[in-house]
């Protein structure tokens, strides 16, 4: 029995080692292979800095919007017994199963330059295809479920009687929101926002379709990496990859700690 367990463990460790540790290790090694100076040069290249900065602020904006809208959606899903609630719940999960490139194609189908709406918006200076607005829109689409799914279980555990009591005792809706409703859900909101940001800086497919990929304007970091690979600069691509990977790895424990706090509040 213990022999079988040992072999099973060896197989699992081997599978993860070959499929995950080896490629990620090689990627990290390649990013640093040419020394610290080359690494710094690669990630401080003006186009790289612009791409990293664009990824960071669009992801932060999506996280901020989702923190508000996602909490509102979760609140409606938990507290409102409306017809079609199950439909709304399924709709929220749609971005999880729609391929990310297809999310970009959907936005192009609506706002692309071949559509009347797309041309009209471009004429008034608000194009949503091949623009930074389009990047934020695509991020909002693909990250929609994160805050909702983080906040929903916490709200479910909260007693609606507390909200009603606050009302009865004369609290304003805003007072009820900020003093009764929000404090217990804040860690969950933050956890969902961090997940949104992490996904946002890594997002590729939808942005490859909608962003237009203009250096210094609409070129996000993952698409910049693709450009460097295609231009025959795998070292530079790996260096910028390392910056994104380090950010993602730094965010994972933060999101996990926030999720635990959200769970602890529930218990």
């Amino acid at each position, binding site marked *: 029995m213990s022999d079988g*367990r040992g072999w099973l*463990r060896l*197989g*699992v460790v081997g*599978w*993860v080692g070959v*499929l*995950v*540790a080896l*490629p*990620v290790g090689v*990627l990290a090694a*390649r990013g640093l292979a040419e020394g610290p100076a080359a690494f710094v040069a690669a990630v401080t290249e003006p186009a790289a800095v612009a791409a990293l900065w664009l990824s960071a602020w669009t992801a932060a904006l999506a996280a901020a919007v989702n923190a508000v*809208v996602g909490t*509102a*959606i979760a*609140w*409606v899903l938990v507290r*409102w017994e*409306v017809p079609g609630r*199950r439909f*709304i719940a*399924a*709709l*929220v*999960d*749609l*971005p999880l*199963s*729609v*391929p*990310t*490139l*297809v999310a970009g*194609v*959907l936005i192009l*189908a*609506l706002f692309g330059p071949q*559509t009347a709406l797309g041309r009209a918006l471009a004429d008034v200076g608000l194009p949503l295809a091949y623009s930074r607005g389009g990047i934020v829109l695509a991020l*909002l*689409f693909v990250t*929609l479920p994160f805050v909702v799914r983080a906040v929903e279980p916490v709200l479910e555990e909260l007693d609606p009687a507390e909200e009603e009591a606050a009302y009865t005792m004369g609290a304003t809706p805003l007072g009820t929101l900020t003093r009764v409703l929000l404090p217990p859900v804040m860690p969950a909101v933050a956890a969902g926002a961090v997940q949104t940001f992490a996904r946002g800086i*890594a997002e*590729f*497919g939808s942005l*490859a*379709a909608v962003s237009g990929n203009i250096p210094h304007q609409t070129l996000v*970091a*993952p698409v910049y*990496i*693709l450009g460097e*690979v295609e231009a025959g600069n*795998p070292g530079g*691509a*790996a260096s910028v*990859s390392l910056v*994104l*990977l380090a950010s993602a*790895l730094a965010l*994972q424990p933060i999101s996990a700690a926030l999720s635990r706090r959200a769970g602890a509040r529930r218990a």
Partner: protein
Amino acid sequence: MLAAVVGWLVLLLLVPLGALVATVAASFGDVAAALRTEDALDALWLSVAVAAASVVLNGVFGVAGALVLVRQRFVGRRLLDAMIDLPLALSPVMTGLAFLLLFGRSGLLRPAFDTVGLQVAFAWPSVLLATLFVTLPFTLREVALVLEELGDAEEQAAATLGASAWQTFWQVTLPNVRGGLVLGATLTAARALGEFGAVLVVGGSIAGRTQTATTYIHAAIEERQEPAAFGMALLLVGAAVALLLSLHRDRS
């Protein structure tokens, strides 16, 4: 509040979806013709085959990995645990680049694979490898959740009653984790069908060889073949909605 939430969801999700359906409906003849071409059918077939292989391979690995992670205590267990989530931290392009550094021109493993005559990068094995990488955690995490909730009392009881390890696995453990396995397989299939960045970089989107449904759409956009791009996108939306509905039915 309700109106604002519903309005947001309709504007962000349903209106673009409607626009896609309307665009396809308006040029249905062209779309149907584009999707019947050999390139489109090859791309669909590769996507379905790779998704099916990923469901099976990561299904086997997911059950084995969950058993090891939940039921065994050993040195390096936490490292293994962290490694399993690592694919979630990588942008798909980085996954493609990582495999390119192994199997591409002057790749680390290239000489070894050249001697046995197996081409990985820009051939179907790279598409499978990249997809296995990005879908690695899904089944394992779902099965592990079930195993943790269940505890091992039933397995202990079976062992006490004289069942062999195999009998316990087939007759107690596997039936118990079936729900998690189905959920993980659904998530794996959805992600595999939709994977784009990694298979674009390491597969190269070669029509008839390494082009998948998603990289086919990408190529069609670049060549301004809108009926082909929109038609294939609608097919993938249909698959996504079908998988989503089965997911919600399983959960409720």
